[in-house]
């Protein structure tokens, strides 16, 4: 077992203890961190390991949340929660295929702008459609029963479920990164012309990475919809897309732990600064500037660098 995975199981063990000690960490805070952590892991797969900047990830998080939420609101008595989640993930993957398919036709800066512009369409649709609740979003989403058997309504049940889904998602991303496929993604990130010259159809790999990333982001979105029992326009907005960039950057691009650390910090910061209102935007902007200017490797990245040089 690699040291990363050993550390991961240690983290999971600590996370299992959280509901027993709510005076130390609120379970609801922990669930938020897990959802955003998974979201940032998905994003990191694309930015950190494939070198593609997407400003569309809120569209995946939000669309999966909307589909899962709307299905649960209407059919919670007929379908298991897992069906709603799968439908949400499939939606995110499909939107990812469309946005990714268009965006990979251009490179670099254009790629980022195309994802940003296309995610606006998803936002407008979420405002226009009736089933998304428009400006109100979806509220009071029932958590339903998993496989029709396990009732997820109680706080402990949803906590356990969130943790299980997070572990599955994290291990999936870890697996992808360390597979031969992940190696090719890194080759594309570091030197795309060379990857092409080695005979790889880089567009196909990039698209697949994009769709995988979108699907995992969708998983995080579906999970978040169930945990908080609401989906709002904020989930599909540019604001959320930039938050996930910040989480990944702050934690460390292209590191396994970075996104999770970054998500915990940003979620914690939001809780801490919630009373300050507009100041949150300013603080987040300042963190962006400081991160980009002075420690581009992020917290985990800098830590790894220091350990290596020590």
């Amino acid at each position, binding site marked *: 077992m690699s040291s990363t995975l050993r550390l991961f199981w240690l983290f999971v063990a600590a996370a299992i203890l959280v509901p027993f000690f709510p005076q130390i960490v609120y379970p609801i805070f922990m669930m938020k961190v897990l959802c955003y952590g998974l979201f940032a892991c998905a994003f990191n797969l694309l930015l950190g390991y494939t070198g593609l*900047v997407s400003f569309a990830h809120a569209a995946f998080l939000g669309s999966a949340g909307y589909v899962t939420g709307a299905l649960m609101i209407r059919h919670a008595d007929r379908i298991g929660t897992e069906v709603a989640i799968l439908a949400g993930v499939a939606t995110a993957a499909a939107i990812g295929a469309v946005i990714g398919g*268009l965006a990979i*036709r*251009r*490179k*670099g*800066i*254009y790629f*980022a*702008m*195309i994802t*940003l*512009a*296309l995610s*606006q*369409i998803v936002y*407008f649709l979420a405002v*226009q459609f009736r089933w998304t609740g428009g400006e109100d979003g979806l509220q009071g989403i029932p958590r339903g029963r998993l496989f029709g058997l396990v009732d997820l309504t109680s706080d402990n049940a949803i906590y356990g479920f969130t943790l299980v889904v997070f572990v599955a998602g994290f291990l999936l991303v870890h697996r992808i990164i360390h597979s031969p496929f992940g190696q090719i993604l890194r080759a594309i990130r570091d030197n795309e012309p060379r990857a092409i010259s080695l005979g790889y159809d880089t567009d196909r790999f990039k698209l697949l990475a994009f769709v995988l990333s979108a699907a995992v982001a969708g998983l995080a979105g579906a999970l978040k919809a169930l945990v908080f029992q609401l989906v709002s326009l904020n989930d599909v907005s*540019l604001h959320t897309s*930039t938050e996930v*960039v910040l989480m990944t*950057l702050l934690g460390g691009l292209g590191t396994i732990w970075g996104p999770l650390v970054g998500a915990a910090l940003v979620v914690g910061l939001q809780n801490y600064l919630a009373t300050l*209102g*507009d*100041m*949150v*935007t*300013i603080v*987040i*902007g*300042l*963190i*962006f*500037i400081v*991160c*980009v*200017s002075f420690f*581009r490797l992020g917290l985990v990245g800098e830590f790894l660098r220091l350990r290596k040089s020590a």
Partner: protein
Amino acid sequence: MFDIPLPAVLAQVTIGLINGCFYAMLSMGLAIIFGLLNIINFTHGAQFMMAAFITWIGLNQLGPWLGFPELQLGFWASLVVAPLIVAAVGMGLERLLLRRLAHLDHLYGLLLTFGVALVTEGAFRHGFGVSGQGYDPPEMLQGPIDIGFMMLPRYRLFVVVASLAICLATIWLFERTRLGAYLRAGTENPRLLQAFGINVPVMITLAYGFGVGLAGLAGVLAAPIMQITPLMGGNLLNIIFAVVVIGGLGSISGAMVTGLGLGLIEGITKVVYPEASTVVVFVIMALALLLRPAGLFGRET
């Protein structure tokens, strides 16, 4: 669309043309900055907003702030002062922060300007709230004017004429003057230009200031038309990005033509099928990517 009265069509086309003017000025600024700095300036919207706010502050707040209630900075003064302030702040930003990232992946420049945009928007939101401020056009531009086939608010006509003049002047500057030749050369091959004894770092700062100044000019012109809110620039910038993807960042005149064209198309869509008017630019972008991946006037980077 034949059952729609002609005045309504003309009104929407005019609004489309005016939006197109703003798209043109903003995307030209982006293209200029991209040419020399190789980054997409995410702060562009915030800088546009800043100029509009400076205009508003100059008229309504400056005097009381300084203790001279009589003191006012009128529209015409703002048209000169606000872009200069915005450009100066921008050049400071380029010198202090952006320059340090020039040798890195373009991603970092993009993220930095994005962070600056967040701080700027947050600061203005903190200071002025999100509700919109109104601004009256200067007296000589108030009221309608008859341009033969329709009545048009004087100020709107002024915006169209002024923006077109600004765009054409910019193109003239870039295509016909020595400074423009240096700037174009800097886009093509900065090292060679430096070898010829041109101070390329200064050119880069100037180019950033100029691009941002264009956004500032657009912001002042927009003040009497749009609601002045901290979010006015960010919302516009999303559309500008689509415009820039369609037209490509390689050509300044291309940015102008695409901007005007898309503004008009948006205006016409508002008449024919209003629901689609907010997304039509993005849909066109998707189509353009399928049909002409390198952009209408673009070249692959």
